[in-house]
Every structure is written in C-alpha cells, then in structure tokens.
C-alpha cells in the first residue's frame, strides 16, 4: 500500500528552524514505523537521523511522536494507525538536537535524583534474601520500565516546567519504595515530597496512555503520594 510519511527535520549545523520532509512510500500493513524510517534513511535520504537499537520494544531507544502521540517507533505497525498519512516528530519537552534525536540528559538526571538503586546496609545472607511472591508482586509493574521517556514527554506538567522530576523517575522510585528488601523508602519519599516531586502530577493520565510497557504509571504515582501523605507503605 502507498503511504505518505511526513518527518520533522532539523539540522543544527545548517538550519535556523525545523521543517518537514514528505516521502511517498510503498509499504506493508505489518511494517513498523521504524521500518519506514530505516527505508527512507537507507534509500532516499541518509541524513535522516534517529535513535534505535533492538527494534522490538525493549531497549527504549526509539520513542517518538507518531501522529501526535508518543510511541516506540518499532512497536507501531502501519495497520494499527488506521491511516495512510503518518507524521513522525520528536518527543516533546526535551531539546531537539537533530531531527528525531533529543537531549536525554535532563531525563536521566531526574532518574538519578531519586536514588534508583537498592539500599540495604544489613549483611546479606549466604544465599538469597527471601521475598514472598506477594511481596515480589507488590512492585512488579514498576520493574518493567525501560526509560524510554514516552511517559515524561507526554506529560503536560512536564511540558510546562521541566524541573518536574517526571513520571519515569517516580516509577523508578516506586520500584524501590515498595520492594520489601529496600531500606530507603523514607528518604525517597522525602525527595519526592516536593513541589517538583509528586505534586506536579495532576492526574492527567497521559503517561499511562503513552507507556509502551503498559505500566500503570498514574496509579504508581498515586501510591507514592499516598505513602507520603499517610507515612505508611501498605
């Protein structure tokens, strides 16, 4: 089938402003949007630049705005878009470096700021620390995060002020706050008990809709808010 691909272009070494390039391409309904971009880059315009690696929705490299919404370009099949007109743009709220490549540094800085690692100062046993299946289930959802930034860059609060730590960082904090083996829940809750911590979340739900791993992001943020408010983790 014939599709029209409109892609956001910006070359920092030459352009003062971005523009859009349009390509008319023959494609299969089962092609991924990423396949189209690779085809354009390989055959029509080698200067088109974007990040990608695993091409099956795990590494999180290719988060993009496709027809106005955040997706991983490798997880969207043309037949799922329901139209032959496809517009691809960079994710919002992070500075565009070139074409579809954005500056991920602020995103990772927010991630690092919430102590995203296990804290347990007790001497570990010889074998594994025990954890029941129920305890493990408690934080299962938020272990799935691949740091693709679809959630944070879909969030209007983040667009309004990028000092907001963002949904992904709160998900990372949740994963440890509710892990029975961790001892630093109080510290992380203190970090997030801040105007640019959880309180910028206005329960808009864009994050939950955008998440390619189907994490219930808004729910996780809500659980962190509740923990701050009640001082309890149950």
């Amino acid at each position, binding site marked *: 089938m014939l599709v029209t691909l409109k892609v956001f272009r910006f*070359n*920092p*070494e*030459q352009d003062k402003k971005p523009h859009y390039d349009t390509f008319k391409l023959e494609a299969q309904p*089962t092609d991924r949007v990423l396949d189209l971009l*690779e085809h354009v*880059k*390989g*055959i029509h*315009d*080698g*200067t088109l*630049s974007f*990040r*990608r*690696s*695993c*091409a*099956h*929705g*795990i*590494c*999180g*490299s290719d988060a993009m705005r496709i027809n106005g919404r955040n997706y991983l370009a490798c*997880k969207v*099949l043309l037949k799922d878009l329901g139209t032959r007109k496809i517009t691809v743009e960079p994710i919002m709220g992070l500075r565009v*470096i*070139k*074409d579809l*490549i954005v500056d*991920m540094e602020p995103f*990772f800085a927010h991630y*690092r700021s919430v*102590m*995203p*690692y*296990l804290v*347990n100062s007790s001497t*570990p046993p*010889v*074998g*594994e620390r*025990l*954890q*029941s*299946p129920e*305890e*493990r289930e408690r*934080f*299962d959802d938020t*272990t*799935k*995060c*691949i*740091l693709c930034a679809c959630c944070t860059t879909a969030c209007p609060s983040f667009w309004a002020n990028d000092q907001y730590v963002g949904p992904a960082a709160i998900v990372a904090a949740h*994963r*440890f706050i509710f892990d029975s*083996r*961790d001892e630093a829940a109080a510290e992380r809750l203190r970090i997030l008990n801040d105007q640019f911590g959880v309180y910028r979340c206005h329960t808009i739900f864009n994050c939950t809709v955008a998440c390619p791993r*189907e994490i219930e992001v808004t729910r996780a943020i809500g659980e962190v808010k509740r923990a701050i408010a009640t001082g309890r983790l149950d």
Partner: protein
Amino acid sequence: MKTHQYEVVVVGAGGAGLMAALYASRNAQTAVLSKLYPTRSHTGTAQGGVGAALGNMEEDHPEWHTFDTVKGSDYLGDQDAIEFMCTEAVQAVYELEHMGLPFSRTPEGRIAQRPFGGHTNNITGKPVPRACYAADRTGHMILQTLYQQCIKNKVQFFDEFQVVDLIISNNAVAGVVALQLSTGEFHVFHAKAVIFATGGHGRIWEITSNAYAYTGDGLAITLRRGIPAEDLEFFQFHPTGIYKLGILITEGVRGEGGILFNDKGERFMERYAPRVKDLASRDVISRAMYIEMKEGRGIGGNRYLYLDVRPETVNKYAALDGRKRPDGSPYQVTAEEIISKLPDIADFCRTYLGVDPVTQPMPVQPTAHYTMGGIPTNKFGEVVIDDKNTVMEGLYAAGEVACVSVHGANRLGTNSLLDLIVFGKYAGLRAAEFARGASFQPLPADATDFARQQFDRLLNNRGGERAAVLAQEMKSVMFDHVGIFRTAEGMQQALEKVRELRQRFENISVQDRGRVFNTDLMNAWELGNLLEIAEVVTVCALNRTESRGGHARDDYPQRDDVNWLKHTLAWITEQGIQLGYKPVTITKYQPKERVY
C-alpha cells in the same frame, strides 16, 4: 581533540561491561564508554533466565551444570573455564539478588527456577529447573540492576561515545580512540587497561534476533590491530524467532511446556531428541526445524513451524511426559499462569503477529542469535593472542565478544547471562589489579590517524554505492549460505560475494556531511566492521570440514574429533586471512556422541 586519562577503560555498557565497571571501579579509576545509553544495550532483551545450580526447585549441582555445558558445547568448550563458570554461578546469582535484582520467587521466597534446553539432571537425563528468572525479562532486570548499582557507586560514563580504535604502544595497550556522536569529535582515552565488552555481530545475517547496534565493533577493531579471533565459524541460530521478523521467543516458552509442531500436527522433536524433545540444545532443534521445512513439512509449505503454548497443548504433553511440579503434583497450567510467566512474549505476539499465544500457535523460524566465537581470552578475561595462550598486556574482553571458550561450538540457554556476570567481574578485577601495578604506556603522536583515515575515506568517497544496498546483499548471501546448514559450494559463493561487497564498500558515499549525530557515517563504518567479520566467518566455516554444534555442513555431516577437536584462530594480515589452531582444554569429560 580531547585526551582523557583513566586507569581502566571499559568499552560497552551491557551486562559484561557494567559488571566489569562495578568491579574495576572499586580499585582503579575507571570510565565506561558506550555507543548507546547503557540501558539500551542488548543484554536488556535477554528473556529466559540466568543459569545457576541453586537447586531451589529440584536437586541440582554445579557438576551437572558443568557437564551439560561441556556436552552442549559439542565438546569444544574449554572444560577448566566451564567448571570455573558453573561453580562461580551460584554465588554470582546470589550477588545479583543482593544488588536488588527482582527475581521471581517460589512460595518459600527463594529464587524461582525453570527448565531450559540442555540443562539436565545428570542421573535421570531429564530436564532440571536451573534457569533463575525474573518473569520473562531476566536480561532487562540484570541490565537495570547493574546500571543502578553503577549509579550508586558513581561510575564514570561517557554515553554515546563510539570507540573506533585500540591504541597499542610498545606491544601493550595504551588506550582507545572514540568518536563523540553528538559532536563528531575524536577523543583519546589514555589507559593502562582496556576491557572490550561490545557484544556480537548477528547483523551479518538477514533474519536475526540481534539489535541494530550489534555490528561487531570490538571484534573488528581488535582484528584490525593484529589480534586473532577464535572460533568464528560457530554461530548460533536460535530455533524460535518470530517468522520474518526474527524477534526472539524465549526458550522459556518451551520450559513452561510449549511444543513445536510441523504441518502434520506432529511433535517432531520426539524423532530428533527422544529423551528431552523440545528442550534439546538449540543447534539440535534449529537443524531439526530446517530439515522439517526442507522436506516440505513447514506450515502450509512455508518456511515456518508452530510453537504452541496453549494450555490444552501444554497440559496434554505434560501428562504424556509425566511432568511434575516440585511438590509432586502433575504439571497442569491455566492460560493465566502462562501469561503471568511469559508476559513479554504475549506482548510480542499480540503486537507483531496479532496472535494471542494462549489461544493460537505462534509461527516461528530459526533466527541468527549468538556468536560463540570472538576475542580469545583465558578464564580471567585476559586476551590471549596465540596457540600458547600468551597474554596481551592490559587487554581484556568479556561477554559475547569474548571467546573463553565456555560455549565451544554451541551455547546453552541461560549461559550467556551467566557468562556476563562471571567473566565481566573477573575481567574488571584483573584489569584493576593490573592497572595498580602498571604504568601508562606513552601515547603515540599519531594515535588517532588510523581511525581518522577510515572516516575520511568514507566521507570523501563519491563512488555512489549505498551502505543499505550492500548490507542487504551481505545479509542475504550469509543467511542462505553461511547459515544453519552449509556446503563448500555455498560458502565459496558467499565468500566471493562478500569479497565483492568489500570492494564495492570502498565506493560507498555517505550523504550526511555533518558532525552532529552523523548516523549515516556511523552506519557505513559499522557495515565495514560487519563485512570484515563476515569474510573471516566464511573463511573459518569453509576451512572446518566437520559438523559440530552451530557449524553444520551438508557435505561433512559428522563430528570429527580426530582431526577437528581444536579451536580455530584467525588473523587478518597483509597477506589476507591466516588461520591457526589451539587445543581444547579437556579435564574430566572425554568427548562422546551427543544425543538428547
């Protein structure tokens, strides 16, 4: 051009690289250079589990794991290194858990384990649950956990820095040259020790489970610097990739009871591996599938078969096999249990196939997956450069890019994640130890020349060949002729084609003339790496006139221990590709016929 100085430089930030960095940084000034943000590394896509004889579900021993790995390697693995890895495995997995890895748990709260291909109880010969898993995203959890620990320990990262050359001075390591992708600037990293953990090169083949980033960079760099590659003819084709896409469906599906069927609805693995059937070693299954399809029993005559994990199928065959749960009750599952154990697989199937794996069978075909060969090392991750295992001072390798050899001619599932954490750790420890006692080698004045030449050539060509076109031709000929089944005629054809492509590569033009994220130029440079490696792989494959593990020849279908129980070494020299051999270390297990 900027110069940095670190005692240890780690190239690659996947499981092996991050593990090396964690250990090296405790005792030496360490920097990690990666062409991707670390969490994008291919380790994250590993699904099924990390192998270790914890014995949490059923009796198990590191000795059994060792034997299974030796046998799985088709007796080409170095047994001292294998024993080392399988013995270290237990503590290595506990260490991961202590770092916070969220393993799935048994009702008693211990790390959950599942059966996996080739892992057996050595007394009964039946599958044993040895794969320690975190749902079906074990690799993702290992990568995240190690990255988090690096953050906690303030490891220094240079993200999106592509290492393009190794600097050697006085026959020892002096550092690396890297390109900063966001600026196009060259950087020199002056170092005492360099650890390559850059992964594999599956992008040589058309249908592959591997990421775009898997272009064999570390291997190509070392080959260009006169360091040999070991056992490159051994490449694993994983039996179950999604038809046409090559996306991996973990062996864990078969561990949970999934069965492979042909067009006749037959569980054909009963014929090829009577004892363990669908849980035989990957090379055995890939070959079986190839034969089934070649003899016309692919689904609808097509080049795929069915992997069926619907509860009714799983339960029927579990009953026939007499499979039991740890508490002795019969192994019977519900759709909910399968989805809860394999959520990512369910997601792939729905996204890419529109198929729900608990209501429909999945179309699968073998997919290019893993290189058993690579940069030769000893069991401490030190790079060894000849048949006497002479150590190259200051150079280390770990993970898929290295060849210890613990996987020999074929790798068992769950042994790669194990390889990363054991040899990543030891490479890091050794490199730091070396750095403590060594001085910096002087940096040559022309340290970046070799790399600059390669990139200038690519930028200044006006030849008109396109990288994407050459890449497609390479992938196609390699998949057809240097794939699951090989013949002298086919491989010779492939060799001529690859050589032609290497000539045409000299005429590639790159459209992007910029410096900021010039992905066009980087793709072309990566293709150069793949072509160089493809030629060496083909030469080695042509040379080995036997079938063993992942190297299967129609014209030499038997394993030949008399002439071929040895590792291949390949050098790129001015006179072309030179081959040599080194002995296999055999300690306890004499080679026997390999049946499952």
